[in-house]
């Protein structure tokens, strides 16, 4: 069990980072971005293509891939904040569903529908606990998730840039009237989350099932983790991601429970929703 749980921690770190991205997006730019991990997937596939077909060194390919992930995300953000500036979160998020479909099929066309021959960026064990090996990937992703969450929190609460972002998310019209540049800020948030998710997917993808659909559907466990924090709290999103990853890893040890493993994120989502919606909530303030 422990071995499985620790093995699942790498995935947990990945979920945690994606959950942080989802939370940031939902808080700051009013979107549940279903294409969050698909953007990352696309960036990684470009990186693999560059290093395998074009012959770029792995690190250079990866950097280009990450930049492309960020750029894709920024483009999507620009589209949404241009045409759906006033739309509700439902419509804005529905667009990302269409983009998710678009990115998966585009990657099928460009890169085929087989898993990609990733070169691992990080490889080998970091240390071992009670004879259970913890890989470098695990250490880096877990650290990354914590660092990103803490960093974002500090950025939002301590800096004037963060203040502007919060103003924009809570009182968009007032913020715009005060001269805060709404659209560039929103696009920046999209770009940053795109960069982060491509980065973390590049790190973990070589050691995961990495076909386009699996990588794109990482948004499901990430959403489960983000829901633990109610799409508001970064710390709980990280905790949720790590715990979910470990739980999946532990369950994966038992063959008879493999179906349970597939349904774990779904069950977590349903459970959390039932809990958080136990009191009646109305759709609009009045």
């Amino acid at each position, binding site marked *: 069990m422990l071995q499985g749980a620790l093995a699942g921690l790498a995935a947990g770190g990945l979920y945690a980072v994606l959950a942080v991205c989802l939370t940031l997006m939902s808080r700051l730019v009013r979107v*549940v971005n*279903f294409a969050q991990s698909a953007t990352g997937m696309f960036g990684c596939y470009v990186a693999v293509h560059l290093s395998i077909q074009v012959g770029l060194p792995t690190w250079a390919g990866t950097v280009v891939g990450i930049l492309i992930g960020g750029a894709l995300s920024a483009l999507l953000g620009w*589209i*949404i904040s241009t*045409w*759906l500036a006033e*739309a509700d*979160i*439902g*419509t804005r*998020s*529905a*667009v990302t*569903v*269409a*983009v*998710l*479909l*678009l*990115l*998966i*099929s*585009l990657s*099928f*066309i460009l890169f085929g529908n087989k898993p990609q021959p990733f070169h691992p960026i990080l490889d080998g064990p970091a240390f071992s606990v009670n004879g259970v090996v913890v890989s470098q990937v695990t250490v880096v992703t877990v650290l990354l998730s914590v660092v990103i969450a803490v960093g974002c929190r500090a950025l939002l609460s301590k800096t004037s840039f963060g203040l502007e972002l919060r103003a924009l998310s809570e009182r968009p019209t007032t913020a715009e009237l005060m001269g805060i540049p709404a659209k560039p800020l929103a696009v920046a948030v999209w770009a940053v989350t795109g960069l982060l998710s491509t980065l973390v997917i590049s790190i973990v993808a070589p050691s995961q099932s990495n076909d386009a*659909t699996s990588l794109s*559907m990482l*948004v*499901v466990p990430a*959403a*489960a983790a983000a*829901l633990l924090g109610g799409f508001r709290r970064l710390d709980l999103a990280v905790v949720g991601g790590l715990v979910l990853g470990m739980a999946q890893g532990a369950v994966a040890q038992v063959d008879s429970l*493999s*179906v349970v493993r*597939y*349904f774990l*994120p*779904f069950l977590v*989502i*349903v459970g959390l*929703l*039932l809990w958080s*919606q136990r009191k*009646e*909530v*109305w*759709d*609009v303030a*009045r």
Partner: protein
Amino acid sequence: MSRAETGPLTRLGVPLVVAGAAIVVGYLFSVGLDGYFVYLGMSAIVAGIALLGLGVVTGSAGMVSLCQLTFAAVGAWVVSGLNRIGAPGGFLVWLVCGGVAAGLVGVLVGLPALRLRGINLAVVTLGLAAAADLTLVQIQFPGTVDGVSVDRPEAFSDDRNYFWLGTIVLTACCLLVHFLRKTRWGSGWQAVAFSERGTAAAGASVRTSKLSAFAVSAALGGVAGGLLTGQVGLAFPASFTAMQSLALYVLAIMSGAHLIDMAVFGAVLWVAVPELLKRWGVPQDWGFVVFGLLGTHALTTGGNLGTAVRELWRRRSKGAAGVELSAPPAEVDMPPPGEPVLVVRDLSVSFGEVKALAGVNLSVPSNGVLGVIGPNGAGKSTLVDIISGFLPQATGSVELDGRPLNGLSPTRRARAGLRRTFQQDRVPAGLTVGAYVRFVARRRLSSSEIDEALEFFGCPPAKTPLRRVDVGARRLVEVVGHLLARPKVLLLDEPAAGLPHEEHVALGLRLRQVPARFGVSVLLIEHDLDLVRSVCDTITVLDFGQVLASGPQAEVLANPDVLKAYMGETELL
């Protein structure tokens, strides 16, 4: 202009004639088309039924459902399972079982989505689709591993006849959706998509509306899956992937699948686009890229093919319908106000540090109209929200006809005879005036009853689509609907907002007759003092969440405190 809605003959007859024609066309296709096209047509029929379901949940009820093919997989599972064990009844019975089973799964999945906004449902359904994807690959469908293929019904065993059976099933599903739309459920779907508050205020359960939409959609998905299994004989997980569910959702949005013809058209696209790409030698994955692009376009512009085509067709008829209130209403005998029917005691609520209302008492007499006035931010709308049950955290008591209402949901209060209207537009644009009034009234109404009430308030005729009614008139249609529900008390939150000023007094004259004509007592919240003066014998004044004065009109309006708070120091009255 005739105010009558269409008669029962057209209401029932036209859809049945169209359905009959569709079945005949289906037969002609099944004998006339090339075998390959019959096969493609069958795929389109399957997609059409699935899209029809999505049209209900996403188009009518406004929720995002991303697992339509998972429900199809449930239907396929049940059909192949029943076939495997040789269950009695044959294919058609199994197909219905598959639909019912998928509907039940839909209810189970939808349960956590009861109070969910669209986006949470999207997360839940995507989660289910992803999990089902992996699970199906691992466990496979019953009969697939040992190659037991599903028996088609004897009369429809070859591909051409099976295609004809498909058209019949599709037609039946279209009829089902068409008639369900005309029921209370259907109106509830439209209402809940537009406003949950508005739905609850009409005494309809938000929960039932959402769940029924989701269940109907899932059941249609199940039927589609079962039909597909009959087509190919063996069900394979590759037919039910999350990717395809996503694509179907996008297609439903893009084509406007809440319109039945557009669901069918979407199904044709579903088959035609990849087929054409194949013929042109383009990889078929471009099909989903095309759907993705068109879907993004449809979502960002807020339009879809269906509405675009319909607007061209109807060539934008004349513009908005409004209110005509010029002539004064006929006199009626006014019964004198009686015992209090709505009694509110010690009502308080705070939002954080702000005390929005503190210790408010008031009572509405039966056959009376009580006016509540006050400056902006005095807590008038909050008062309506509390009385109608939308702010359960409020303290104090609300009694309707001697019966305490504390702890009841807005829906229950509405059913108990306490109705309210909203300051904002909460009228779903997808219905006609008549259908909306029937939905809000929650009781059997004759057409003449509706026409009379609409005419009394100068509203557009019953058959006018609400889409073409201006906001001021929509809010009066809302008032008419609630009055026809014959509640004990109706709370009106600034009903005149949105009307031209010269019609305020004309509206006032009508509101004054409401207790006599409809037997409904009224609590009227209003800004316009002319209107209040023309309607209300008694007035309560709120200021900073407290009752400043209360009593007969002349006395209250002469009170110097009221003058000061409400009008400022200057003489405005």
